[in-house]
């Protein structure tokens, strides 16, 4: 545990760098500019998208917070894709691995470090948006509504794990491109698989699409507006962490077998 926290500390240390301070300023500016955005909504004739992210029940997602989350996702993909390849390229990883630390511990430390950096970015934007909204509208968001916005962070855990997984296979730019393409394709497949579920079972396409869909995370689940309670909330948390674990397992397998020189 101590070894993991060591790697975590090294990763988080980059928050002290001026570049990251600039990033935080950007997060604050984004938070301030999106604080008065409306609820995220889709018209009923948007079809599948309406079915996936419709807002008839429960606490709604606020467009401003979704924008902050999307910016956080970009930061996550950027940090996740570059950190490990950069360590390998600069031979920093060799230095770290000369210590009594395994490759898996290094990987987990890196993962938590990047997640912490992303959460900091998201919190900076979210807190600013909340405060600016308070200052402008004279009212503070309800606790349940704020909680709903923070549930979006559950999507961040598998996203970072996914990016790290690709970064163990590819160089930084390659990992970024492949992650972005994979996420885009995941969303496409998720929408198609839900659409296919609405189709009659006799269409033979159903089972094939479902099999394919299991290889791609369904990020739409994290953007549903509903009363997140009971089994759905538990399922969402289990979904986020199980996906994270799967991606990290693949990444650790690759880390153990790859040549670091």
């Amino acid at each position, binding site marked *: 545990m101590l070894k993991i926290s060591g790697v975590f500390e090294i990763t988080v240390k980059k928050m002290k760098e001026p570049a990251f301070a600039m990033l935080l300023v950007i997060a604050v500016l984004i938070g301030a500019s999106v604080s008065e955005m409306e609820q995220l909504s889709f018209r009923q004739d948007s079809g599948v998208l309406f079915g*996936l992210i419709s807002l008839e029940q429960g606490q709604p997602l606020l467009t401003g917070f979704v924008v902050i989350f999307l910016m956080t996702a970009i930061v996550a993909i950027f940090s996740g894709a570059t950190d490990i390849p950069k360590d390998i390229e600069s031979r920093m990883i060799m230095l770290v691995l000369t210590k009594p630390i395994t490759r898996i511990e290094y990987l987990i430390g890196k993962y938590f470090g990047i997640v912490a950096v992303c959460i900091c970015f998201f919190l900076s934007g979210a807190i600013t948006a909340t405060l600016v909204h308070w200052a402008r509208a004279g009212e503070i968001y309800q606790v349940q509504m704020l909680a709903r916005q923070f549930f979006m962070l559950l999507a961040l855990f598998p996203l970072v794990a996914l990016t790290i997984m690709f970064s163990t296979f590819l160089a930084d730019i390659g990992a970024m491109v492949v992650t972005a393409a994979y996420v885009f394709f995941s969303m496409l497949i998720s929408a198609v698989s839900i659409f296919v579920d609405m*189709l*009659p079972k006799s269409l033979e396409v159903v089972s094939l699409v479902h099999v394919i869909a299991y290889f791609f995370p369904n990020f739409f689940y994290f953007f549903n507006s509903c009363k997140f309670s009971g089994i759905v909330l538990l399922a*969402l948390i289990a979904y986020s962490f199980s996906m994270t674990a799967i991606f990290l397992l693949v990444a650790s397998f690759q880390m153990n077998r790859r040549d670091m020189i």
Partner: protein
Amino acid sequence: MNCQMQSGRMKAAPFILGAVFLAYFASNAILRQFVLYRAGAQSISLSTILEKLPAGIRDEVRQRVLIAELKDRLLAASTEGEKISASIALAGAISDKALQEKYAEIIDKYPSAPESAPAFINFLMAPNTALKSISIPRYHEYLKKIHDPDLFYAFDGGLNTLKSRKAANKELAAYLLPLLELKPGYREYQRLYVELSELAFQEANQDVELKARKLEEACGKLSFYDKILGPQQAAKKTKK
């Protein structure tokens, strides 16, 4: 010590993997069902989504979906009547040839079912080129096996088919003749008796014309089928 720890980890690995995959599949299934349930609750219809498809493929996809829906309906059918109706609808959606074949099959398989009426109507006095041809006496035999309201629809449907096949007045009158032995239960029968009395008048068959006129008048005093059926259904619901 390290070796022992490593061996312990190796033993635990399959269990961890199993638990992770179990959690993944179970949570995915729950969330998927939840999304689908909500999509259903908010009546996101398939047709709205299908309308967004490019015009070139829309009709073909719609046709495929319709056929698949009917296949599902046929699989879900539990009674003989449901099976007949679903199989007719499915064959109709596939092609006209398939429908004709299905009608012929239904006449052989279910000669007394009320739901077979469309098949009998279709082949009533059909030309020799058709897969089957049902004569008027054979059709009357079938009519004896069914009851209202199917009986009325079968009589009416048969009459329309004969007219479309340009049957002679004599044949039409022969077709409607069993109506004289029937005790009509609904106002809907009135137009059949009107038809019969007019045909009998043209054929100068006064006896038949008179009987038909009497029944026609009697029908005028009866209620329409909907009015009789409505209270019956309400009574059934109350009993339940």
